[in-house]
């Protein structure tokens, strides 16, 4: 076998591949949200990591204060955090319409610092554990590796959300509005489409995707105020590699970069933390619009 030739036990290789796929699933859902937001609002949403963290904390709060478990949180947390996103767009980001992108980036970056700062103050920087749902405890031995059910669920759930979002964009009328709004929102509005509401909903949806990833992450990682800031820089690199605003690019690149990162951990562990940024640099040099982005 190839693994024998390379002197790597299959358990290690496939274990890292699975880990990469799980990370890739998070990258895909988060970068998908960023792509949706960038596509229509032209805003680099630096608050995305903080909103992902809010998704995880909402899951924790729902369980602690009103007894809503994981499955309820999977629906409720994205709705609650998505609603917060709608308020952020309506009362903060909309004021930046027409000004340089940099202002949106600075505002969302500031927002992320404020949200994370408040949560660090309230809950400390260390994480709070959240239990794996009963139905997804345990796992299955595949012979070459042990596959925990919950981790398999994370990959499946992420893929379902990514495919559903792709279908929403590519196969529905509202998706056609969103794609058209990405290109020429003024003209779309002149056709009678309420673009300001469309924009608000798109931001809310992108934020809801971040919160959804936060719910998925809660049982895997500790629910921590800084869980988003640790992840967001990698996710931005994924978005750049895929092509800013590209839905397909975000999903494919997210999964692929997770796997690349996992494989690098096997073959060159020291480089695993930087490999995605290396890929980003190469892509930027060879294809500045990203692998799936449209060249200007």
């Amino acid at each position, binding site marked *: 076998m190839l693994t024998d030739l390379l002197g790597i036990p299959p358990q290690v290789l496939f274990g890292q591949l699975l880990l990469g796929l799980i990370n890739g699933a998070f990258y895909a859902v988060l970068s998908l949200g960023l792509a949706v937001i960038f596509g229509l609002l032209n805003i680099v949403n630096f608050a995305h990591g903080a909103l992902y963290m809010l998704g995880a904390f909402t899951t924790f709060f729902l369980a602690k204060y009103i007894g809503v478990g994981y499955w309820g949180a999977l629906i409720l947390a994205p709705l609650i955090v998505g609603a917060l996103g709608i308020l952020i767009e309506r009362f903060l980001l909309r004021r930046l319409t027409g000004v340089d992108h940099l202002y949106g980036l600075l505002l969302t970056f500031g927002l992320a610092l404020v949200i994370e700062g408040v949560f660090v103050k309230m809950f400390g920087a260390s994480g709070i554990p959240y239990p794996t749902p009963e139905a997804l405890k345990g796992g299955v031995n595949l012979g070459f590796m042990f596959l925990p059910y919950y981790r398999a669920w994370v990959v499946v759930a992420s893929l379902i959300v990514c495919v559903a979002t792709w279908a929403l964009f590519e196969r529905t009328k509202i998706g*056609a509005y969103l794609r058209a709004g990405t290109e020429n929102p003024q003209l*779309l509005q002149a056709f009678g489409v309420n673009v300001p509401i469309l924009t608000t909903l798109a931001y809310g949806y992108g934020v809801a995707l971040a919160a959804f990833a936060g719910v998925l992450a809660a049982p895997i990682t500790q629910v921590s105020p800084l869980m988003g800031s640790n992840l967001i820089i990698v996710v931005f690199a994924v978005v750049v590699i895929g092509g800013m605003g590209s839905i397909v690019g975000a999903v494919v690149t997210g999964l692929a970069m997770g796997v690349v990162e996992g494989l690098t951990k096997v073959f060159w562990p020291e480089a695993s933390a930087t490999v995605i940024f290396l890929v980003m640099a190469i892509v930027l040099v060879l294809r500045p619009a990203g692998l799936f982005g449209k060249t200007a």
Partner: protein
Amino acid sequence: MNVSVQNNEIGGQHASELIEELRITDLHAFYGEGHALHGIDLTVHQGELVTLLGRNGSGRTTTLRSVVGLIGHRTGSIVLKGEEVINSQPHTIARLGVGYCPEERGIFSSLNVEENLMLPPAIAPGGMSVEELYEMFPNLAERRKSMGTRLSGGEQQMLAMARILRTGATLLLLDEITEGLAPVIVDKLAEILIELKKRGYTVVLVEQNFRFAAPLADRHFIMDHGHIVETVAKDELETKAHVFDQYLSV
């Protein structure tokens, strides 16, 4: 809705039955600090085809963009089908029955022909069916699955026109629809405009191609430096030929 009395006859309607579709009064428009329109006054009646003629920069496109609400800073009055819209948002204005065809055609590159065609929401009953539109623009039927920007300039223009005819809009604002097109396509567009006029559409046409516009229009508004400097009815084309020489010749 105002009904005005004029001496000319438009689209088969008797003068006393003319219904105002669009009335612009003292319209000023601004791009930042730049003052682009300096008090435009014009009225367009139902079923009428009028042109805005003038050199580049005379304010014709800005006038259309002001009507559809795409110029953020504008003052004065724009009454569409009896409703004041000077402070309205573009999507609200469109839903009064306005179809806008921009100068750059505005074909969405991420959508195919059929998606582009179906994109604008129906804003009023009575829009043409897709079958009718494919009959009027057969090239589009053949290329319905092609991406919008893979079309030739003429096909893109036809798509831009067809797109607004499906919505039920009855007031069409068409900006430079013949620009850069082959003569055979321009002739086809003229035929389509004649057909639309027969069907009772009201058309405001921004043009530089006077030969194209002259036989089609009921009236011509000549613009210069953000003003309407002259209005010429179709039966005055010969007597006021000097106006065209003065304001349209390069």
